Protein backbone atom coordinates (compact mmCIF):
# COMPACT_ATOMS: atom_id res chain seq x y z
CA UNK A 1 0.00 0.00 0.00
CA UNK A 2 1.24 3.42 -0.87
CA UNK A 3 0.56 6.68 0.89
CA UNK A 4 -2.84 8.28 0.18
CA UNK A 5 -1.30 11.53 -1.09
CA UNK A 6 0.76 9.63 -3.59
CA UNK A 7 -2.24 7.62 -4.74
CA UNK A 8 -4.22 10.83 -5.19
CA UNK A 9 -1.33 12.32 -7.22
CA UNK A 10 -1.09 9.15 -9.30
CA UNK A 11 -4.84 9.10 -9.99
CA UNK A 12 -4.72 12.72 -11.11
CA UNK A 13 -1.38 12.44 -12.85
CA UNK A 14 -2.72 13.06 -16.35
CA UNK A 15 -4.56 16.17 -15.18
CA UNK A 16 -1.51 17.49 -13.29
CA UNK A 17 0.68 16.75 -16.29
CA UNK A 18 -1.55 18.65 -18.69
CA UNK A 19 -1.76 21.61 -16.33
CA UNK A 20 2.02 21.63 -15.97
CA UNK A 21 2.46 21.59 -19.74
CA UNK A 22 0.23 24.63 -20.09
CA UNK A 23 2.20 26.46 -17.41
CA UNK A 24 5.48 25.56 -19.10
CA UNK A 25 4.21 26.63 -22.50
CA UNK A 26 3.45 30.05 -21.01
CA UNK A 27 6.89 30.17 -19.46
CA UNK A 28 8.86 29.93 -22.69
CA UNK A 29 11.90 32.12 -22.43
CA UNK A 30 11.51 35.33 -24.41
CA UNK A 31 14.80 36.91 -25.45
CA UNK A 32 15.20 40.65 -24.99
CA UNK A 33 16.45 42.71 -27.93
CA UNK A 34 18.24 45.03 -25.48
CA UNK A 35 21.67 43.89 -24.37
CA UNK A 36 24.92 45.29 -23.06
CA UNK A 37 27.09 44.82 -26.15
CA UNK A 38 28.27 47.81 -28.17
CA UNK A 39 30.88 48.50 -30.84
CA UNK A 40 31.90 51.84 -29.30
CA UNK A 41 35.13 51.93 -27.32
CA UNK A 42 35.29 54.59 -24.65
CA UNK A 43 38.58 56.46 -24.25
CA UNK A 44 39.54 58.73 -21.35
CA UNK A 45 42.44 61.16 -20.93
CA UNK A 46 44.56 61.26 -17.77
CA UNK A 47 47.54 63.26 -16.61
CA UNK A 48 50.17 61.52 -14.51
CA UNK A 49 51.13 63.98 -11.82
CA UNK A 50 53.45 61.85 -9.71
CA UNK A 51 54.47 58.26 -9.19
CA UNK A 52 51.11 57.14 -7.82
CA UNK A 53 48.52 59.68 -8.81
CA UNK A 54 46.68 60.41 -11.99
CA UNK A 55 44.08 63.04 -12.64
CA UNK A 56 41.56 63.34 -15.42
CA UNK A 57 42.89 65.55 -18.19
CA UNK A 58 40.81 67.78 -20.41
CA UNK A 59 41.98 68.28 -23.96
CA UNK A 60 40.98 71.75 -25.27
CA UNK A 61 40.35 70.58 -28.83
CA UNK A 62 40.09 67.09 -30.25
CA UNK A 63 39.35 65.71 -33.67
CA UNK A 64 39.49 62.05 -34.64
CA UNK A 65 39.64 60.60 -38.13
CA UNK A 66 40.26 57.14 -39.49
CA UNK A 67 43.73 56.47 -40.90
CA UNK A 68 42.41 57.23 -44.39
CA UNK A 69 40.92 60.55 -43.28
CA UNK A 70 37.22 59.82 -42.70
CA UNK A 71 35.76 62.01 -39.96
CA UNK A 72 34.93 60.21 -36.71
CA UNK A 73 34.67 62.72 -33.88
CA UNK A 74 35.24 66.35 -32.99
CA UNK A 75 34.88 68.13 -29.67
CA UNK A 76 36.17 70.81 -27.33
CA UNK A 77 37.24 70.41 -23.71
CA UNK A 78 37.15 66.64 -24.04
CA UNK A 79 38.12 64.25 -21.24
CA UNK A 80 36.27 61.18 -22.54
CA UNK A 81 35.05 60.17 -25.99
CA UNK A 82 34.00 57.10 -27.95
CA UNK A 83 35.50 55.47 -31.04
CA UNK A 84 33.54 53.06 -33.23
CA UNK A 85 34.99 49.62 -34.00
CA UNK A 86 34.63 48.09 -37.44
CA UNK A 87 31.81 45.51 -37.14
CA UNK A 88 33.27 43.52 -40.04
CA UNK A 89 36.96 43.64 -39.04
CA UNK A 90 39.31 43.04 -36.15
CA UNK A 91 41.53 46.13 -36.31
CA UNK A 92 40.96 49.89 -36.47
CA UNK A 93 43.44 52.77 -36.73
CA UNK A 94 42.63 56.34 -35.79
CA UNK A 95 44.41 59.68 -36.00
CA UNK A 96 43.79 61.71 -32.85
CA UNK A 97 44.38 65.35 -33.58
CA UNK A 98 44.93 67.94 -30.85
CA UNK A 99 45.95 71.59 -31.08
CA UNK A 100 49.63 70.78 -30.74
CA UNK A 101 50.02 67.21 -31.92
CA UNK A 102 48.56 64.39 -33.98
CA UNK A 103 48.78 60.92 -32.49
CA UNK A 104 48.03 57.44 -33.74
CA UNK A 105 45.93 54.87 -31.93
CA UNK A 106 45.57 51.39 -33.41
CA UNK A 107 43.25 48.91 -31.70
CA UNK A 108 42.68 45.21 -32.25
CA UNK A 109 39.81 43.15 -30.91
CA UNK A 110 37.83 39.97 -31.37
CA UNK A 111 34.19 39.58 -32.28
CA UNK A 112 31.68 36.92 -31.29
CA UNK A 113 28.26 36.50 -32.84
CA UNK A 114 25.07 35.17 -31.37
CA UNK A 115 21.51 35.04 -32.62
CA UNK A 116 19.22 36.61 -30.03
CA UNK A 117 15.95 35.67 -31.71
CA UNK A 118 14.27 35.91 -35.08
CA UNK A 119 12.86 39.30 -34.10
CA UNK A 120 16.00 40.76 -32.49
CA UNK A 121 18.49 39.43 -35.01
CA UNK A 122 22.21 38.97 -34.49
CA UNK A 123 24.28 40.54 -31.77
CA UNK A 124 28.03 40.95 -31.84
CA UNK A 125 30.15 40.97 -28.73
CA UNK A 126 33.48 42.83 -28.91
CA UNK A 127 36.20 41.64 -26.55
CA UNK A 128 39.97 41.10 -26.14
CA UNK A 129 40.61 44.76 -26.90
CA UNK A 130 44.31 45.49 -27.28
CA UNK A 131 46.55 48.34 -28.43
CA UNK A 132 48.95 47.50 -31.24
CA UNK A 133 50.28 50.95 -32.03
CA UNK A 134 50.12 54.37 -30.38
CA UNK A 135 52.18 57.55 -30.15
CA UNK A 136 50.98 59.02 -26.84
CA UNK A 137 53.11 59.13 -23.70
CA UNK A 138 51.35 56.00 -22.56
CA UNK A 139 48.14 54.12 -23.30
CA UNK A 140 46.56 51.34 -21.27
CA UNK A 141 43.62 49.01 -21.87
CA UNK A 142 41.59 49.37 -18.69
CA UNK A 143 38.75 47.06 -19.71
CA UNK A 144 39.06 44.72 -22.69
CA UNK A 145 35.37 43.81 -22.83
CA UNK A 146 33.43 46.50 -24.68
CA UNK A 147 30.03 47.07 -23.12
CA UNK A 148 27.53 49.86 -22.64
CA UNK A 149 28.05 49.57 -18.89
CA UNK A 150 31.78 50.25 -19.27
CA UNK A 151 31.03 53.25 -21.48
CA UNK A 152 28.64 54.63 -18.89
CA UNK A 153 30.74 54.05 -15.78
CA UNK A 154 34.35 54.06 -16.89
CA UNK A 155 36.46 53.60 -19.98
CA UNK A 156 38.05 50.86 -22.03
CA UNK A 157 41.24 52.75 -22.82
CA UNK A 158 43.17 55.30 -20.77
CA UNK A 159 45.47 57.72 -22.57
CA UNK A 160 48.10 59.19 -20.27
CA UNK A 161 49.92 62.46 -20.61
CA UNK A 162 53.14 62.56 -18.63
CA UNK A 163 54.51 65.63 -16.91
CA UNK A 164 58.17 66.01 -17.80
CA UNK A 165 58.77 69.06 -15.59
CA UNK A 166 62.12 68.23 -14.04
CA UNK A 167 65.12 70.04 -15.45
CA UNK A 168 68.81 70.69 -14.72
CA UNK A 169 68.73 74.48 -14.47
CA UNK A 170 69.23 76.44 -11.29
CA UNK A 171 67.27 79.71 -11.18
CA UNK A 172 69.02 82.57 -9.46
CA UNK A 173 67.28 85.86 -8.66
CA UNK A 174 69.20 88.88 -7.45
CA UNK A 175 67.89 91.17 -4.74
CA UNK A 176 69.06 94.33 -3.07
CA UNK A 177 68.69 94.65 0.67
CA UNK A 178 68.13 98.34 1.64
CA UNK A 179 68.66 99.03 5.34
CA UNK A 180 66.08 101.16 7.17
CA UNK A 181 66.57 102.78 10.51
CA UNK A 182 64.71 100.95 13.29
CA UNK A 183 62.93 98.84 10.68
CA UNK A 184 63.64 95.61 8.83
CA UNK A 185 65.46 96.20 5.56
CA UNK A 186 63.50 96.60 2.38
CA UNK A 187 64.18 93.93 -0.24
CA UNK A 188 63.72 94.59 -3.90
CA UNK A 189 64.80 92.99 -7.15
CA UNK A 190 68.26 94.11 -8.15
CA UNK A 191 69.55 94.68 -11.65
CA UNK A 192 73.24 93.90 -12.02
CA UNK A 193 75.75 94.25 -14.82
CA UNK A 194 77.97 91.17 -14.96
CA UNK A 195 81.13 91.27 -17.01
CA UNK A 196 81.04 87.49 -16.92
CA UNK A 197 79.27 84.55 -15.32
CA UNK A 198 81.08 81.27 -15.88
CA UNK A 199 81.06 77.79 -14.41
CA UNK A 200 83.80 75.33 -13.48
CA UNK A 201 83.48 73.64 -16.88
CA UNK A 202 84.38 76.88 -18.68
CA UNK A 203 80.88 77.68 -19.93
CA UNK A 204 80.00 81.36 -20.13
CA UNK A 205 76.44 82.13 -19.08
CA UNK A 206 76.59 85.92 -19.12
CA UNK A 207 78.99 88.50 -20.56
CA UNK A 208 78.45 92.21 -20.04
CA UNK A 209 74.75 91.53 -19.50
CA UNK A 210 72.35 93.47 -17.33
CA UNK A 211 70.30 90.93 -15.45
CA UNK A 212 68.06 90.55 -12.47
CA UNK A 213 67.95 86.77 -12.74
CA UNK A 214 69.97 83.97 -14.27
CA UNK A 215 69.09 80.41 -15.31
CA UNK A 216 72.25 78.33 -15.31
CA UNK A 217 72.45 74.58 -16.07
CA UNK A 218 74.33 72.59 -13.46
CA UNK A 219 76.90 69.93 -14.29
CA UNK A 220 74.77 66.79 -14.84
CA UNK A 221 77.85 64.55 -14.64
CA UNK A 222 78.90 65.69 -11.15
CA UNK A 223 77.28 66.23 -7.79
CA UNK A 224 78.50 69.79 -7.51
CA UNK A 225 78.94 72.86 -9.70
CA UNK A 226 80.90 76.08 -9.10
CA UNK A 227 79.70 79.37 -10.57
CA UNK A 228 81.85 82.46 -10.88
CA UNK A 229 80.34 85.93 -11.05
CA UNK A 230 82.39 88.99 -12.08
CA UNK A 231 81.04 92.52 -12.17
CA UNK A 232 82.49 96.00 -12.50
CA UNK A 233 81.68 98.27 -9.57
CA UNK A 234 80.96 101.99 -9.91
CA UNK A 235 84.51 102.87 -8.83
CA UNK A 236 85.90 100.70 -11.60
CA UNK A 237 87.06 97.85 -9.41
CA UNK A 238 86.25 94.28 -10.39
CA UNK A 239 84.32 92.24 -7.84
CA UNK A 240 84.47 88.46 -8.01
CA UNK A 241 81.94 86.21 -6.31
CA UNK A 242 81.75 82.47 -6.15
CA UNK A 243 78.81 80.14 -5.60
CA UNK A 244 79.56 76.46 -5.14
CA UNK A 245 76.47 74.28 -5.23
CA UNK A 246 75.99 70.62 -4.41
CA UNK A 247 72.98 68.48 -5.18
CA UNK A 248 71.69 64.93 -5.34
CA UNK A 249 71.03 63.21 -8.68
CA UNK A 250 68.31 60.54 -8.83
CA UNK A 251 66.22 58.89 -11.54
CA UNK A 252 62.47 59.18 -11.23
CA UNK A 253 60.26 56.68 -13.01
CA UNK A 254 56.64 57.76 -12.98
CA UNK A 255 54.26 54.95 -13.79
CA UNK A 256 53.78 54.56 -17.55
CA UNK A 257 56.16 57.46 -18.29
CA UNK A 258 59.76 57.65 -19.42
CA UNK A 259 62.40 57.89 -16.68
CA UNK A 260 63.46 61.43 -15.71
CA UNK A 261 66.62 62.67 -14.00
CA UNK A 262 65.87 64.64 -10.89
CA UNK A 263 68.26 67.07 -9.18
CA UNK A 264 67.27 67.90 -5.64
CA UNK A 265 68.59 68.59 -2.13
CA UNK A 266 70.22 71.71 -3.55
CA UNK A 267 72.68 73.22 -1.08
CA UNK A 268 75.76 75.45 -0.98
CA UNK A 269 79.30 74.30 -0.36
CA UNK A 270 80.65 77.83 -0.38
CA UNK A 271 79.55 81.30 -1.43
CA UNK A 272 80.96 84.85 -1.25
CA UNK A 273 77.78 86.84 -1.67
CA UNK A 274 76.51 88.91 1.23
CA UNK A 275 73.78 86.36 1.83
CA UNK A 276 71.52 83.99 0.02
CA UNK A 277 68.40 81.93 0.67
CA UNK A 278 66.96 78.81 -0.91
CA UNK A 279 63.38 79.07 -2.07
CA UNK A 280 63.25 75.67 -3.77
CA UNK A 281 65.78 72.85 -3.54
CA UNK A 282 64.39 70.81 -6.51
CA UNK A 283 65.29 71.77 -10.07
CA UNK A 284 61.91 71.89 -11.77
CA UNK A 285 60.84 74.05 -14.70
CA UNK A 286 57.71 75.05 -12.77
CA UNK A 287 59.82 76.74 -10.10
CA UNK A 288 60.48 80.43 -10.78
CA UNK A 289 63.38 80.54 -8.34
CA UNK A 290 65.77 78.25 -6.53
CA UNK A 291 68.11 80.71 -4.85
CA UNK A 292 67.70 84.37 -3.82
CA UNK A 293 71.04 86.19 -3.84
CA UNK A 294 71.33 89.37 -1.84
CA UNK A 295 73.79 92.17 -2.50
Amino acid at each position, binding site marked *: *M*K*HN*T*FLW*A*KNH*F*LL*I*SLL*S*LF*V*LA*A*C*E*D*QASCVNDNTSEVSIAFYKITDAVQRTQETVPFLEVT*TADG*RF*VYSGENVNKFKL*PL*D*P*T*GKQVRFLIIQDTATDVLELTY*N*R*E*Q*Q*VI*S*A*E*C*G*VDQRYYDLDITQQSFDSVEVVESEITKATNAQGSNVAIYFCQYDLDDTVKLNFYQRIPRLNNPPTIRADTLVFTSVTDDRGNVWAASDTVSSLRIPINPEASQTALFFARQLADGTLEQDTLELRYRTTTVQLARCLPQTRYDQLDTLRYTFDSLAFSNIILDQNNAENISIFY
Partner: protein
Amino acid sequence: MQKISAYFISLLLCGWIGTASCLGQQADSVQQKKYYEGGFSPSALRLGVSLNNIIQTFADTQGDYLGFQADLPIRQFMLSVDYGRATVQLANQQDVLLNRNFAYSSQGSFFRFGIDANLLKDKEKNNNDARGDVIFFGLKYAHSRLDDALTFTVQDTLYTSATLSQSNNKLGAWWLEMNAGVKIQIVRNIFLGYTLRYKFFRRLAGGSSLIPYEIPGFGRGIRENGFGFDYYIYYRIPFR
Protein backbone atom coordinates in the same frame (compact mmCIF):
# COMPACT_ATOMS: atom_id res chain seq x y z
CA MET B 1 9.65 33.17 -16.52
CA GLN B 2 12.04 30.28 -16.65
CA LYS B 3 12.63 30.66 -12.92
CA ILE B 4 8.91 30.63 -12.29
CA SER B 5 8.51 27.40 -14.23
CA ALA B 6 11.42 25.84 -12.36
CA TYR B 7 9.87 26.90 -9.09
CA PHE B 8 6.53 25.42 -10.08
CA ILE B 9 8.05 22.09 -11.00
CA SER B 10 10.21 22.06 -7.91
CA LEU B 11 7.12 22.51 -5.80
CA LEU B 12 5.41 19.68 -7.62
CA LEU B 13 8.32 17.32 -7.22
CA CYS B 14 9.10 18.36 -3.68
CA GLY B 15 5.52 17.53 -2.76
CA TRP B 16 5.93 14.04 -4.08
CA ILE B 17 9.41 13.59 -2.74
CA GLY B 18 8.04 14.71 0.60
CA THR B 19 5.43 12.00 0.29
CA ALA B 20 8.11 9.47 -0.45
CA SER B 21 10.07 10.67 2.54
CA CYS B 22 7.03 10.13 4.78
CA LEU B 23 6.67 6.64 3.39
CA GLY B 24 10.32 6.05 4.05
CA GLN B 25 9.99 7.12 7.64
CA GLN B 26 7.10 4.72 8.18
CA ALA B 27 9.04 1.82 6.71
CA ASP B 28 12.22 2.67 8.61
CA SER B 29 10.37 2.48 11.86
CA VAL B 30 9.65 -1.20 11.14
CA GLN B 31 13.45 -1.80 10.69
CA GLN B 32 12.95 -4.67 8.24
CA LYS B 33 15.73 -5.72 5.84
CA LYS B 34 15.03 -4.61 2.26
CA TYR B 35 14.58 -7.41 -0.27
CA TYR B 36 14.88 -6.98 -4.06
CA GLU B 37 13.60 -9.70 -6.30
CA GLY B 38 16.18 -10.80 -8.90
CA GLY B 39 19.22 -9.42 -7.12
CA PHE B 40 21.32 -7.08 -9.26
CA SER B 41 19.98 -8.07 -12.68
CA PRO B 42 17.84 -5.53 -14.55
CA SER B 43 14.16 -6.10 -13.94
CA ALA B 44 12.86 -4.33 -17.05
CA LEU B 45 13.66 -1.97 -19.87
CA ARG B 46 11.67 1.25 -20.08
CA LEU B 47 11.66 3.06 -23.44
CA GLY B 48 10.32 6.56 -23.61
CA VAL B 49 9.78 9.38 -26.05
CA SER B 50 9.69 13.08 -25.19
CA LEU B 51 6.16 14.36 -25.68
CA ASN B 52 7.10 18.00 -25.29
CA ASN B 53 9.64 17.64 -28.11
CA ILE B 54 6.91 16.32 -30.39
CA ILE B 55 4.53 19.11 -29.37
CA GLN B 56 7.30 21.68 -29.83
CA THR B 57 8.07 20.36 -33.33
CA PHE B 58 4.45 20.80 -34.40
CA ALA B 59 3.88 24.10 -32.58
CA ASP B 60 7.19 25.79 -33.39
CA THR B 61 8.04 26.61 -36.98
CA GLN B 62 11.64 27.37 -36.06
CA GLY B 63 12.78 23.88 -35.14
CA ASP B 64 12.31 20.12 -35.15
CA TYR B 65 13.03 18.24 -31.95
CA LEU B 66 13.14 14.59 -31.02
CA GLY B 67 14.10 12.99 -27.73
CA PHE B 68 14.21 9.43 -26.45
CA GLN B 69 14.97 7.94 -23.08
CA ALA B 70 15.68 4.42 -21.95
CA ASP B 71 16.28 3.12 -18.47
CA LEU B 72 17.20 -0.18 -16.93
CA PRO B 73 15.84 -0.54 -13.38
CA ILE B 74 18.31 -2.39 -11.17
CA ARG B 75 17.02 -2.61 -7.59
CA GLN B 76 16.38 1.03 -6.52
CA PHE B 77 18.56 2.46 -9.29
CA MET B 78 18.00 3.15 -12.98
CA LEU B 79 20.75 3.24 -15.57
CA SER B 80 19.43 5.92 -17.83
CA VAL B 81 20.38 6.91 -21.39
CA ASP B 82 18.93 9.74 -23.48
CA TYR B 83 19.36 10.46 -27.15
CA GLY B 84 17.90 13.26 -29.21
CA ARG B 85 18.18 15.42 -32.28
CA ALA B 86 17.38 19.05 -32.94
CA THR B 87 17.19 21.17 -36.07
CA VAL B 88 16.74 24.95 -35.85
CA GLN B 89 16.14 27.45 -38.62
CA LEU B 90 15.81 31.16 -37.92
CA ALA B 91 15.71 34.05 -40.35
CA ASN B 92 14.79 37.69 -40.60
CA GLN B 93 14.85 39.25 -44.05
CA GLN B 94 13.01 42.42 -42.99
CA ASP B 95 14.89 44.82 -40.73
CA VAL B 96 17.98 45.47 -42.84
CA LEU B 97 18.63 48.94 -41.40
CA LEU B 98 18.43 47.63 -37.82
CA ASN B 99 21.11 45.01 -38.53
CA ARG B 100 18.55 42.30 -37.99
CA ASN B 101 18.77 40.75 -41.42
CA PHE B 102 20.10 37.23 -40.99
CA ALA B 103 19.66 33.53 -41.67
CA TYR B 104 20.71 30.86 -39.20
CA SER B 105 20.47 27.10 -39.27
CA SER B 106 21.75 24.37 -37.02
CA GLN B 107 21.42 20.63 -36.71
CA GLY B 108 22.85 18.30 -34.15
CA SER B 109 22.31 15.50 -31.72
CA PHE B 110 22.94 14.76 -28.08
CA PHE B 111 23.15 11.93 -25.63
CA ARG B 112 23.22 11.83 -21.89
CA PHE B 113 23.72 8.98 -19.47
CA GLY B 114 23.84 8.50 -15.76
CA ILE B 115 22.21 6.91 -12.76
CA ASP B 116 18.91 7.76 -11.14
CA ALA B 117 17.89 6.61 -7.68
CA ASN B 118 14.28 5.88 -6.79
CA LEU B 119 13.20 7.72 -3.66
CA LEU B 120 9.68 6.23 -3.57
CA LYS B 121 9.32 3.40 -1.09
CA ASP B 122 6.86 0.58 -1.61
CA LYS B 123 5.66 -0.06 1.90
CA GLU B 124 4.20 -3.43 0.99
CA LYS B 125 7.49 -4.81 -0.36
CA ASN B 126 9.62 -2.63 1.92
CA ASN B 127 11.93 -1.58 -0.88
CA ASN B 128 12.56 1.19 -3.43
CA ASP B 129 12.39 -1.07 -6.48
CA ALA B 130 12.62 1.17 -9.56
CA ARG B 131 10.69 -1.13 -11.92
CA GLY B 132 7.35 0.41 -10.95
CA ASP B 133 6.33 3.94 -10.04
CA VAL B 134 9.35 6.04 -9.28
CA ILE B 135 10.23 9.44 -7.89
CA PHE B 136 13.84 9.79 -8.76
CA PHE B 137 16.90 11.93 -8.42
CA GLY B 138 20.01 11.41 -10.54
CA LEU B 139 23.19 12.73 -12.04
CA LYS B 140 23.99 12.71 -15.75
CA TYR B 141 26.79 13.48 -18.13
CA ALA B 142 25.62 14.96 -21.41
CA HIS B 143 27.31 15.55 -24.73
CA SER B 144 26.13 17.26 -27.88
CA ARG B 145 27.56 17.75 -31.34
CA LEU B 146 26.22 20.23 -33.85
CA ASP B 147 26.83 22.07 -37.09
CA ASP B 148 25.46 25.56 -37.54
CA ALA B 149 25.83 28.48 -39.94
CA LEU B 150 24.96 32.16 -39.77
CA THR B 151 24.79 34.73 -42.52
CA PHE B 152 24.07 38.32 -41.51
CA THR B 153 24.29 41.79 -42.96
CA VAL B 154 26.04 44.64 -41.19
CA GLN B 155 25.09 48.19 -42.15
CA ASP B 156 27.63 50.77 -41.01
CA THR B 157 27.92 54.45 -41.88
CA LEU B 158 31.65 54.73 -41.17
CA TYR B 159 32.96 51.35 -42.24
CA THR B 160 32.05 49.08 -45.10
CA SER B 161 28.64 47.47 -45.03
CA ALA B 162 28.97 43.77 -45.65
CA THR B 163 27.32 40.39 -45.46
CA LEU B 164 29.26 38.15 -43.10
CA SER B 165 29.17 34.39 -42.64
CA GLN B 166 30.20 32.32 -39.66
CA SER B 167 29.79 28.63 -39.00
CA ASN B 168 30.65 25.85 -36.60
CA ASN B 169 31.54 22.46 -37.93
CA LYS B 170 31.07 19.56 -35.50
CA LEU B 171 31.08 21.85 -32.49
CA GLY B 172 31.23 19.77 -29.31
CA ALA B 173 29.47 20.66 -26.09
CA TRP B 174 29.29 18.79 -22.83
CA TRP B 175 27.73 19.48 -19.49
CA LEU B 176 26.50 17.88 -16.26
CA GLU B 177 22.93 17.52 -15.10
CA MET B 178 21.07 17.01 -11.87
CA ASN B 179 17.78 15.33 -12.69
CA ALA B 180 14.65 14.85 -10.66
CA GLY B 181 11.32 13.51 -11.79
CA VAL B 182 8.59 10.92 -11.66
CA LYS B 183 7.51 7.94 -13.76
CA ILE B 184 4.01 6.75 -13.05
CA GLN B 185 2.36 3.66 -14.46
CA ILE B 186 -0.93 4.78 -16.01
CA VAL B 187 -1.98 1.47 -17.48
CA ARG B 188 -0.12 -1.81 -17.52
CA ASN B 189 3.47 -1.20 -18.72
CA ILE B 190 2.63 2.32 -19.92
CA PHE B 191 4.21 5.11 -17.88
CA LEU B 192 4.02 8.87 -17.98
CA GLY B 193 6.73 10.96 -16.40
CA TYR B 194 8.41 14.29 -15.93
CA THR B 195 12.10 14.97 -15.80
CA LEU B 196 13.28 18.31 -14.47
CA ARG B 197 16.92 19.00 -15.24
CA TYR B 198 19.39 21.46 -13.85
CA LYS B 199 22.16 21.70 -16.45
CA PHE B 200 25.45 23.20 -15.42
CA PHE B 201 29.19 23.39 -16.13
CA ARG B 202 28.62 23.64 -19.89
CA ARG B 203 31.76 23.62 -21.97
CA LEU B 204 32.27 24.11 -25.72
CA ALA B 205 35.07 22.64 -27.80
CA GLY B 206 36.17 23.36 -31.36
CA GLY B 207 33.94 26.33 -32.02
CA SER B 208 34.40 29.49 -34.05
CA SER B 209 33.32 32.98 -33.01
CA LEU B 210 29.69 31.96 -33.59
CA ILE B 211 27.89 30.98 -30.41
CA PRO B 212 25.27 28.35 -31.27
CA TYR B 213 21.73 29.58 -30.83
CA GLU B 214 20.66 26.30 -29.34
CA ILE B 215 22.69 23.31 -28.22
CA PRO B 216 20.63 20.12 -28.68
CA GLY B 217 19.71 18.71 -25.29
CA PHE B 218 21.00 21.77 -23.46
CA GLY B 219 19.17 24.85 -24.64
CA ARG B 220 20.39 28.36 -25.42
CA GLY B 221 24.06 28.30 -26.35
CA ILE B 222 24.88 31.61 -24.70
CA ARG B 223 24.16 30.22 -21.24
CA GLU B 224 26.44 28.08 -19.14
CA ASN B 225 23.67 26.63 -16.99
CA GLY B 226 19.93 26.46 -16.93
CA PHE B 227 16.84 24.40 -16.34
CA GLY B 228 15.18 21.97 -18.70
CA PHE B 229 12.04 19.96 -18.62
CA ASP B 230 10.83 16.89 -20.49
CA TYR B 231 7.55 15.08 -20.37
CA TYR B 232 7.82 11.44 -21.45
CA ILE B 233 5.58 8.54 -22.26
CA TYR B 234 7.25 5.16 -21.63
CA TYR B 235 6.65 1.59 -22.49
CA ARG B 236 8.08 -0.96 -20.07
CA ILE B 237 9.37 -4.33 -21.26
CA PRO B 238 9.48 -6.51 -18.13
CA PHE B 239 12.27 -9.08 -17.90
CA ARG B 240 10.55 -11.21 -15.24
